[in-house]
């Protein structure tokens, strides 16, 4: 199973991919997840049925994630 994590940034977004069966890739993706959420980014699992759910920890079985900076009132 392959996963993709997209982080919204000024370039449009950056992508991290991992194979759930390759520990090194999973750990690299987890490290990025922890780094960004540690900076206050929100993490969401994107599901095929157009639904999204918030994530508080990295799940190597999530196929698609989006990390984004915090929003605030304008």
């Amino acid at each position, binding site marked *: 199973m392959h996963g993709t994590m997209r982080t919204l940034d000024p*370039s449009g977004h950056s992508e991290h991919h991992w194979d759930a069966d390759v520990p090194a890739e999973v750990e690299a993706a987890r490290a990025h997840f922890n780094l960004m959420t540690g900076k206050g980014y929100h993490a969401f699992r994107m599901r095929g049925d157009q639904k999204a759910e918030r994530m508080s920890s990295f799940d190597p079985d999530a196929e698609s994630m989006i990390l984004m900076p915090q929003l605030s*009132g304008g």
Partner: protein
Amino acid sequence: MPIYWVSLNDGGWWVDAPAVLAWTTPSTSSTAGLNTITTSSTTSTYSNIIWPITTGSTMAMSVFDTPRYFLGAQAAQAQAALQQQLYDARPGGFVNVTRQQLGQLAQGQLGQLPPQRPSPEQLAAAERRMREDHDRAQQVARNRESAARRARDLLIEHLTPEQRETFVRHGWFVVEGGQSKTRYRIHTDRGPAGNIHELDITGNAVAQLCGHIRHMSLPLCDEVLAQMIMLKADEEGYRRLANRSRLR
């Protein structure tokens, strides 16, 4: 160090770079009166001259302090003649001007310098800088276009067919709140502030919501995607952070 009447305002070239550099700090040496040379800030209206201070002046005001505004050229020349005498009285006192130069000033022979032609090396360097600036600007524009395209593709990837259609045709799409099932119309044809309308059951806008990413400049479609995800996954959280204005 020569004394020249140099004009930045008129686009003239200076030949005395150290003196010009010194202009950035207005001199406070005027009270010395007889034998000081002062310079002036390049931002000042009166800043286009390097000058000897007027005898006895207690202000940072020069004999050549924009004669066209103050003294007139003749008065400036007269003052230069006076300065020349003072120079004789205190040889070496004027650190930035020679007696001969004062004499030339007194006779009106040192006026504004003609523009100095840049050397081929200077021209080549200027051309190189312009080319680099141009390339850099083009690269920035390319990066911005690329980012906008990537963000748009990512947004479209997460839209339903119906949302895609209105997004492409009208620049907005409707998303259903994940908790309340309230419908929101997200506009993409304006900035990310105040671009969300809360709809009633008949589809009329009843309120405007303003909540977006701050402290980072993202392509608009990334902003919109973030808003949509928040409304679907954490509607209450989004409504708590967003400013809400009733429309009707």
